[in-house]
């Protein structure tokens, strides 16, 4: 077997796996069957391509081959005659002899698959797993590693979710226009969750986990290409790019976080910032602004400032006000309080934070005492700041954050 053909099949499959599975799932209404025949088509490609040459549109070849295998299987399984009837009806509707000149002309069913994988009838953790498995094209062990879950647990999670899709007949079709917004919001939640998981990963998990952020951005790009008019899709992609632009600068060589104030802004990714800013402009082109677009706009204000003193804090606070109206939450209020401290001075911010401390959602949330400590330190109230850092240290979960807070605490007395 010629290694180059094998590599090419592998590359095509890796890249187009989502599209292939999506098209087959839409055709057969069955994820398992879609996966199996996709795999068979890949195996067939490994045998045929070295002999026949690589087809002009590899994805179309894989799709046609997989579809034929699927039909063969269904024909063999008499008990599933009903499915064949469904399939036949589908063929009548779409026309089976369509031969595209290039992959761009193939119908892209991935959007439908997004809606199936992120169906609200599935538990959120399963939505996340299915999206990685079927749309990002990761293997089950890769998904397990990325989400820090043992492989058998992940296998079971995916099997259960597929069973629910099959037995309750969660459809492979676009939601009705009435439901589209809320269903799309569910898809965006999953993509953003993936991004945040990867972004928040600590050093020891860094390698596999940052891949998650990249995958989330890739999925965001796919969604944006498929739904260019949906401004929250644009907003989410912008938010991810503008946040990810700071990735290299946000931790030191030892993996310990560096505050926005102390980051080397020369290490921020200017390409991502440029792309993100242009997307934010599109996302905010017409009211009403959505929460992702507003968060992206806040991120853009940070990204375009040479340092924290020149950041447009009044504008940041104004955007947090908008965000609070859209999605009221104590965490957003805390972020707003920090921005107010930058605009009006630490005392004003401290005042707001102290009023937030009673919120039950923020109990046990270490960023609150940490932010409080920072402001107390800036006010020269070192003893109280030390006390607040200690309170934050008691709540913090991950090691790099712990080191970061310990250093802030130590710096108080120097």
């Amino acid at each position: 077997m010629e290694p180059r053909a094998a590599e090419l099949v592998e590359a095509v499959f890796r890249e187009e796996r989502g599209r292939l599975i999506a098209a087959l799932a839409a055709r057969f209404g069955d994820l398992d069957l879609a996966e199996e025949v996709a795999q068979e088509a890949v195996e067939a490609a490994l045998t045929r391509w070295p002999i026949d040459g690589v087809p002009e549109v590899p994805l179309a070849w894989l799709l046609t081959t997989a579809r034929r295998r699927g039909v063969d299987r269904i024909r063999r399984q008499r008990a599933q005659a009903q499915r064949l009837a469904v399939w036949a009806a589908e063929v009548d509707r779409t026309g089976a002899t369509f031969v595209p000149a290039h992959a761009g002309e193939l119908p892209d069913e991935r959007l439908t698959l997004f809606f199936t994988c992120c169906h609200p009838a599935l538990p959120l953790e399963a939505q996340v797993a299915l999206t990685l498995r079927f749309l990002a094209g990761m293997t089950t062990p890769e998904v397990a590693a990325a989400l820090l879950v043992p492989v058998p647990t992940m296998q079971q999670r995916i099997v259960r979710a597929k069973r629910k899709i099959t037995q309750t007949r969660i459809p492979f079709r676009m939601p009705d226009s009435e439901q589209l917004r809320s269903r799309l919001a569910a898809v965006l939640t999953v993509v953003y969750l993936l991004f945040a998981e990867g972004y928040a990963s600590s050093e020891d998990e860094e390698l596999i986990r940052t891949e998650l952020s990249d995958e989330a951005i890739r999925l965001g790009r796919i969604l944006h290409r498929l739904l260019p008019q949906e401004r929250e899709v644009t907003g989410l992609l912008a938010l991810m790019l503008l946040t990810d632009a700071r990735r290299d600068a946000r931790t030191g060589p030892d993996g310990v976080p560096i505050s926005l104030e102390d980051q080397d802004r020369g290490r921020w990714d200017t390409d991502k910032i440029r792309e993100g800013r242009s997307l934010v402009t599109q996302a905010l082109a017409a009211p009403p602004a959505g929460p992702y677009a507003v968060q992206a706009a806040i991120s853009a204000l940070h990204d375009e400032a040479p340092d924290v003193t020149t950041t447009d804090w009044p504008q940041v606070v104004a955007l947090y006000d908008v965000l609070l109206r859209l999605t009221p939450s104590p965490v957003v209020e805390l972020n707003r309080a920090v921005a107010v401290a930058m605009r009006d001075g630490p005392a004003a911010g401290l005042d707001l934070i102290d009023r937030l401390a009673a919120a039950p959602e923020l109990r046990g949330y270490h960023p609150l005492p940490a932010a409080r400590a920072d402001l107390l330190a800036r006010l020269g109230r070192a003893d109280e700041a030390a006390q607040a850092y200690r309170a934050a240290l008691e709540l913090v979960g991950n090691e790099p954050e712990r080191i970061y807070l310990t250093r802030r605490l130590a710096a108080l007395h120097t």
Partner: protein
Amino acid sequence: MKYMLQVIGFADATFPEGEGPTAEEFIGYQQALVGAGVHVDSGFLDDYQLATSVQVDRSGERIITNGPFPETREYLGGWIVIDVPDLDAALDWATRNPGAKYGRVEIRPVMG
């Protein structure tokens, strides 16, 4: 595909004057199901406080008890079986069920 919609009520629910469930809206809903050709079967259950249970023990003896009266605050108020193409369609019908705004509607596929 057949789905059962179980209409679940909350025992401790209270409604402001004139805002509670009415028989008319449930009847109207059922007519809509019949009109759309998706209605298979349905029934309203009488007061859950009238419940009687029977169990058969190992020796074949039957045991009859009054109740149970939910320590659980939820009770089954009625059921509807519909025949629709997929879960999204079932969800749409469940959303329109008046019980969804007074309690909740649980959707389960019917086997076979």
